[in-house]
């Protein structure tokens, strides 16, 4: 009798849980093979299946056995995430990520990022996603029901099966055109002007951004690029400088966006102009001097 009761309770609980599992968004891994060879690289990709829901925010922590694997590279060139709050990066033997897709994403195989690992020694490498959170595109950020499928990679010394080589990315394209925006807000650095920027590179992904500011345009050539993140508090709060933002992709291709000064220097405030004036004056003076010397010589 008790067994029958347990069975009924079990069936009832299953009935409550199953619909949630069926309609839960899924985070899963994918790789070309489940077998790897010691000393060789392999790629694991993290996907989301939204199960017909419109989802707009994704975060989590991908864990992997550090003793077996060496993380070589993270690729996010073709991600569905438009803005990274935390770009996928290695931290505490895991890869953390957090980002949003404005307007939401609804699809069965949304690529979040992929990672390339080198197998260090034999064993079974288990990939999991911890602290994962995916939010609905509903205006209140409600949490979507989520199911996560872990992934295992068997690492051996000799190749049991043919392991496909990782596709080498040949990126000859610059990052996409972008338009940085200068703004200020009382809540940021006491209302100081800042610049916001972002762009994409569909092939290898953006590696980093660099910035330089200069009130002189020609002499900007000699000033140094600094690595920067958006939002960047501008050094020239009078907005009299040319601002150059350089986006560099993971293959080293660059795209530079130039912002003209909002309050440009007057001609006499720009010492570039004075240098040019002096050079012209010197040329004229030396020319005049030569003419005078020739005429004086002719008289003598």
């Amino acid at each position: 009798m008790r067994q029958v009761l347990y069975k009924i309770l079990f069936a009832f609980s299953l009935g409550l849980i199953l619909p949630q599992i069926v309609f839960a968004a899924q985070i899963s891994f994918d790789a070309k093979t489940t077998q790897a060879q010691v000393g060789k690289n392999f790629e694991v990709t993290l996907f989301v299946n939204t199960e017909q829901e419109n989802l707009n925010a994704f975060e989590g922590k991908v864990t992997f056995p550090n003793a077996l694997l060496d993380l070589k590279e993270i690729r996010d060139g073709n991600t569905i995430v438009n803005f990274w709050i935390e770009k996928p990066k290695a931290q505490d033997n895991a890869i953390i990520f957090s980002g949003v897709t404005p307007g939401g994403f609804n699809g069965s195989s949304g690529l979040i990022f992929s990672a390339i690992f080198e197998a260090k020694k034999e064993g079974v490498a288990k990939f999991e996603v911890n602290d994962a959170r995916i939010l609905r595109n509903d205006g209140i950020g409600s949490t979507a029901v989520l199911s996560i499928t872990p992934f295992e990679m068997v690492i051996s010394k000799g190749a049991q099966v043919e392991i496909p080589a990782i596709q080498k990315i040949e990126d000859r394209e610059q990052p996409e055109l972008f338009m940085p925006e200068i703004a200020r807000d009382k809540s940021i650095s006491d209302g100081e002007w800042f610049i916001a920027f972002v762009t994409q590179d569909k092939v290898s992904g953006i590696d980093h951004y660099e910035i330089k500011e200069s009130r002189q345009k020609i002499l900007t050539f000699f000033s140094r690029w600094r690595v920067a993140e958006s939002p960047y508090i501008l050094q020239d709060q009078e907005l009299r400088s040319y601002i150059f933002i350089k986006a560099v992709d993971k293959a080293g291709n660059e795209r530079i966006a130039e912002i003209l000064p909002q309050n440009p220097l007057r001609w006499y405030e720009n010492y570039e102009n004075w240098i040019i004036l002096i050079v012209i004056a010197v040329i004229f003076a030396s020319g005049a001097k030569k003419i005078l010397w020739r005429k004086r010589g002719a008289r003598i």
Partner: protein
Amino acid sequence: MSKYLLFATVLFGVLGAYFVVSAVSVNVSADVQSLCGNGNIDSGEQCDGSNLNGKTCSTQGFSAGTLSCNSNCTFNTSACTSGGGGGGGGGGGYTAPAETAAVFSGRAYPKSTVTLLKDAQIAATAIAGSDSTFSMKLSGLSGGNYIFAVYSEDSKGIRSSLLTFPVSVTSGATSYVSGIFIAPTIAVDKSEVKRGDNIAIFGQSVPNGEITVAVSSEEEFFGKTIADQNGIYLYNFDTVQLDMGQHFTKSKAARDGAISSFSKAISFAVGTKNVAAGLPAKCPAKADLNSDCKVNLVDFSIAAYWYKRTISAEFVVKDGERLNGDGKVDLVDFSIMAYYWTG
């Protein structure tokens, strides 16, 4: 003496001309940015749109191919072909891929402005025709996955919900995204309606479109109406069938076999009195952190600045008014921002 005078005149003339040129050059460089895209070759431009200034791949040092223009008005030689090497059975030429582009077409509202976002940033705008159809082409893309989104504003300035669609763009080809159907706009005439009175639910969609209005209660009620030639629709809903309390309504449109998604849901209360409602605000209800009526990269940057930091007293107010008001900036706040995004 007159020679010195002549020399001085020439010197000052040259210097004067330099000053004028240097003063003007600032304006010229500023103008260049705004002129790119007008179809004319202006100072500093190699080309503009389809205007290639008479140049071809061969004038640019290639042997064949198609020269095109980048969006920054410089030549795009990626579809130009270089000839192969010479003697000794030398190699063939490298043929770069043709233009990578995407064409978007669909329905919005008659004569409305349609905004296209590429990876959440405004990439193009177009004006829909009086039949509400629109089409726009986006060039200079790379091969890869993009998230495109469109929205429009009706004749009263009410913005539609953002319609997003992932598109995998093939390098060297033009992708066509057709059948885009922007959801109707929606508004109600009362924020609170006396139970048993009618509430007017109205908005704009395609001309002569069949509008389905849904009102949520314990059970959902549906009604249908036809939009007029300007796409304007009005549906009077009898609230006698609703319980007291808060309710939501939304609408979708159908025409020629195509159906839009549902509009944003807006709320109204069923109570004991009638309270008139204003038109929905033109500015986003939330997430507009710098109060410029847009939710875009700047707002994202402001929020990102406070991510995982103790927020300032100044930002606490914004968090309460425009985010979720939990005293911190985390993924939920960014999700709210992503929902209200305008680009």
